[in-house]
C-alpha cells in the first residue's frame, strides 16, 4: 500500500510539472510510465502510456454527464493525459444491444442499472476483473451494495456501485390523498376508480414486480404466476398509456394527463422541487435498485480503475447525485454527504439499506426470456 501511495504521489508531482508546462506531453507520459514501472505494477503504466489514448464512457445524458464531465472526466484528463470519450444512451437494453454488436474494447465503462443488468452482462461473458487496490475510494462505498455484485461474479468485481433509488408510486395530490395512497399502496395502480388516469412503465420487470405486490406476493418469489399476469392485464385495461422515458413520466404527471403511475424516485423529486403537488410512496417491498459503473471486458483496466477512482471521489459522487436526485453509493456513516442528499427519496442514513428490496438477479434473469416475451403479448391484449 505504501509503495502504491508513493507511486501515486510521484504521479501527482509529475502531473504538477506537466500542468506547469515544465514537461511536454510525451516526456510526461514517458516518465509516468517509468514511475509506474518503478513501483512494479503488474501491467506498468508504460504500456498504458503507449497504448491507451482514450477511454470510452457511456451513461445517461443531460445533467448526469455534465456533472461527470466537470468533476471527474476533466480532472482525469488533466492528470493522466488520457481522453475520456463520453457517449450517451437512452436505455439499458438499447445500450446492451449496441455492446453486443460492437468489437472488444470499443466500449469501456457504462453506467448500468440494477444488479440484474450486471448479471446479464456476466452471463454474456462481458465482465472484467477489477484490481480493487487501484480504487482506494472504494472504501467509502456501502459494503452491502458491493457484496451483491461480488455474489454474481464469484468474488471479483467488474464494477463499482454508484447510486441507488426506487421505483415507487407517484400520484397527483389534487386527486389522490396521501391517506388513500398509503392505504391502497400498489393496488392504487389497479383501482377502477382511476380508470383512464393511470399510467405505468412499459418495462416487464416493473410490471411484474408491481403485479406481485398487487396480488400479495413476494416479488422475488412469485408463486401464482397467472394471478400476477392477470394483475398486469387489469392494469393495462385501466391505463391511459405506458411511458417509456423520464420525459414522458414527468409530463404525464405534471400536465395532469394521469393521476397515478409508478415513477423513478429522482424524477419525481425533481417534479416536487419545481413545486408540482405530486406525492411519492414506496409501498412495502417497493422496487429498489442500484446503479453501477461497469467496466466491460477488453478495456484497459488500469486506466479504467483510475477513472473509477476519480468518479468515486466524494466530491464527484455527491455532485452527480445532486444533479440526478439519486443518493450516491457512499456510506453516510463514513462520508459527509452535504445538505441536499439526505432529503432525497430512498436515501438511507444508516448506510445499511435494510429498508429497500432489490431484485434478486438469479430469480429475475432466469425468467427474463419468458417474461419479457409474455409481457409483449399481454401488453397487446393477449
Amino acid at each position: 500500500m505504501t509503495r502504491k501511495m508513493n507511486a501515486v504521489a510521484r504521479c501527482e508531482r509529475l502531473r504538477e510539472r506537466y500542468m506547469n508546462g515544465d514537461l511536454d506531453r510525451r516526456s510526461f507520459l514517458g516518465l509516468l510510465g517509468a514511475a509506474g514501472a518503478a513501483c512494479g505494477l503488474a501491467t506498468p503504466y508504460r504500456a498504458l502510456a503507449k497504448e491507451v489514448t482514450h477511454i470510452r464512457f457511456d451513461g445517461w445524458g443531460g445533467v448526469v454527464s455534465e456533472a461527470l464531465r466537470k468533476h471527474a472526466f476533466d480532472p482525469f484528463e488533466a492528470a493522466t493525459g488520457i481522453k475520456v470519450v463520453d457517449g450517451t444512451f437512452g436505455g439499458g437494453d438499447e445500450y446492451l444491444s449496441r455492446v453486443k454488436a460492437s468489437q472488444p474494447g470499443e466500449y469501456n465503462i457504462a453506467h448500468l442499472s440494477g444488479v440484474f443488468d450486471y448479471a446479464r452482462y456476466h452471463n454474456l461473458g462481458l465482465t472484467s476483473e477489477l484490481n480493487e487496490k487501484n480504487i482506494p475510494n472504494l472504501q467509502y462505498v456501502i459494503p452491502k451494495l458491493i457484496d451483491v455484485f461480488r455474489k454474481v461474479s464469484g468474488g471479483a468485481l467488474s464494477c463499482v456501485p454508484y447510486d441507488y433509488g426506487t421505483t415507487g408510486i407517484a400520484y397527483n395530490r389534487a386527486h389522490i390523498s396521501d391517506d388513500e395512497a398509503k392505504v391502497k399502496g400498489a393496488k392504487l395502480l389497479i383501482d377502477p376508480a382511476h380508470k383512464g388516469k393511470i399510467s405505468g412503465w412499459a418495462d416487464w420487470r416493473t410490471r411484474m414486480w408491481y403485479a406481485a405486490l398487487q396480488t400479495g406476493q413476494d416479488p422475488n418469489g412469485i408463486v401464482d404466476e397467472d394471478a400476477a399476469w392477470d394483475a398486469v392485464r387489469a392494469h393495462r385495461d385501466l391505463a391511459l398509456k405506458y411511458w417509456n422515458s423520464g420525459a414522458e413520466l414527468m409530463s404525464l404527471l405534471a400536465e395532469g394527463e394521469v393521476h397515478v403511475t409508478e415513477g423513478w424516485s429522482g424524477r419525481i423529486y425533481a417534479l416536487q422541487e419545481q413545486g408540482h403537488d405530486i406525492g411519492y410512496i414506496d409501498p412495502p417491498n417497493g422496487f429498489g435498485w442500484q446503479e453501477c459503473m461497469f467496466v466491460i471486458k477488453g478495456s484497459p483496466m488500469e486506466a479504467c480503475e483510475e477513472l473509477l477512482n476519480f468518479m468515486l471521489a466524494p466530491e464527484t459522487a455527491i455532485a452527480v447525485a445532486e444533479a440526478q436526485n439519486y443518493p450516491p453509493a457512499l456510506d453516510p456513516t463514513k462520508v459527509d454527504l452535504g445538505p441536499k442528499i439526505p432529503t432525497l427519496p430512498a436515501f438511507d442514513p444508516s448506510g445499511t439499506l435494510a429498508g429497500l428490496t432489490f431484485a434478486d438477479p438469479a430469480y429475475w434473469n432466469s425468467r427474463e426470456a419468458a417474461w419479457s416475451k409474455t409481457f409483449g403479448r399481454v401488453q397487446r391484449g393477449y
Partner: protein
Amino acid sequence: MSVEAREARQPWILLAPALSAVTLLLFVPLLFILVYSFWLRTATGADQPGFFLDNWREALTDPFYRDILLSTLRIAAITTAVCALMGYPTAYFIARSRGDKLLMVLLLMLPFWISYIIRTMSWINILGASGAANAALMALGVVSEPVNMLYNEAAVILGLTHYLLPFMILNVFVSLEGIDANVEAAANSLGATRWQSFLEVTLPLSLPGLAAGGLLCFVLGAGTYITPLILGGPRDAMFANLVFEAIITQLNWPLGSALSLMLLLVLGALVAIYNRYLGMTQLMKGLG
C-alpha cells in the same frame, strides 16, 4: 465497339454506384441476418449457432404475429389513403398556383426541422388533457371536462399522417409540375369541363407521383415504431415494435431476424406488385 454494345453498357455504368452501395451495405449485411434467423437464443441470453427452424416456425405460425402484421398493414393503408386525400389537392394547388412554388414546398418541409420525437410529442401539447385544444374547448364552454383524444389508434394515424404527408405532397407535386398546363387548357378548349379534363388528362399523367408517394407513405408507415410508443395506448403496437422489442428488449436477435425478414418479404412483395402494375415499365407503356 459497336454503338449498340455501348448503348447496352451505359445504363449499367449509371446503375453501378447505387447498385453496389445497396448490395454492399444492405444485401450482404442482410445475409448475416438471414443466418442469424436460424440460430437460437439460449436461456442465458447467448446465441447458439446452428440450423434451427424454431424462430421461423414461431414467426409464421403464431397468430400473435399474424394479427399484429395485419393491423400494421391496415394502419399503414389508412394512413396512406388519408395522406393521398389530404395531399393530392394540396400538391395540385402548389403546382397550379401563381405564387412562389419553391417557397411553398420548402414550407412543407419545415416540420422536419423539429426532431421527429419532439414533433410527435407536441401532439400531446395540442390534444392532451391540458393541451391547447382542450383549453380552447373549455374556455369556450363547449366542454367542462377535458376530452380524451389521445392514446388510441386514431392518434397513431394522426401522428403518422403528419410525418408522411410531405412525402406524398412532394411526390405528387413533382409529377404535376412535369405536366404541361397547356394540355389541360387544350382539353378545355375542346369542350371538356375542367373536371373532365382533370380526370382524363391530369390525373392519369400524375399517377406515377401519386403511386410513388403512396408507396413511400405505406412502406414508411408500416415500418414505424416510435409513433405508437408516444401516441398509442397500452395495446397499440405495430410490427416494427415487435422487431424492436425482440432485438433490443429481449436481446433475441435470432427471433428478431426472422420477424424482420418476414416484414421485409411482405413489404417487398407489395413493392413488387407496385412495380409490376404501377411501376415504371407499365407507366411508360401507357405513356408511349
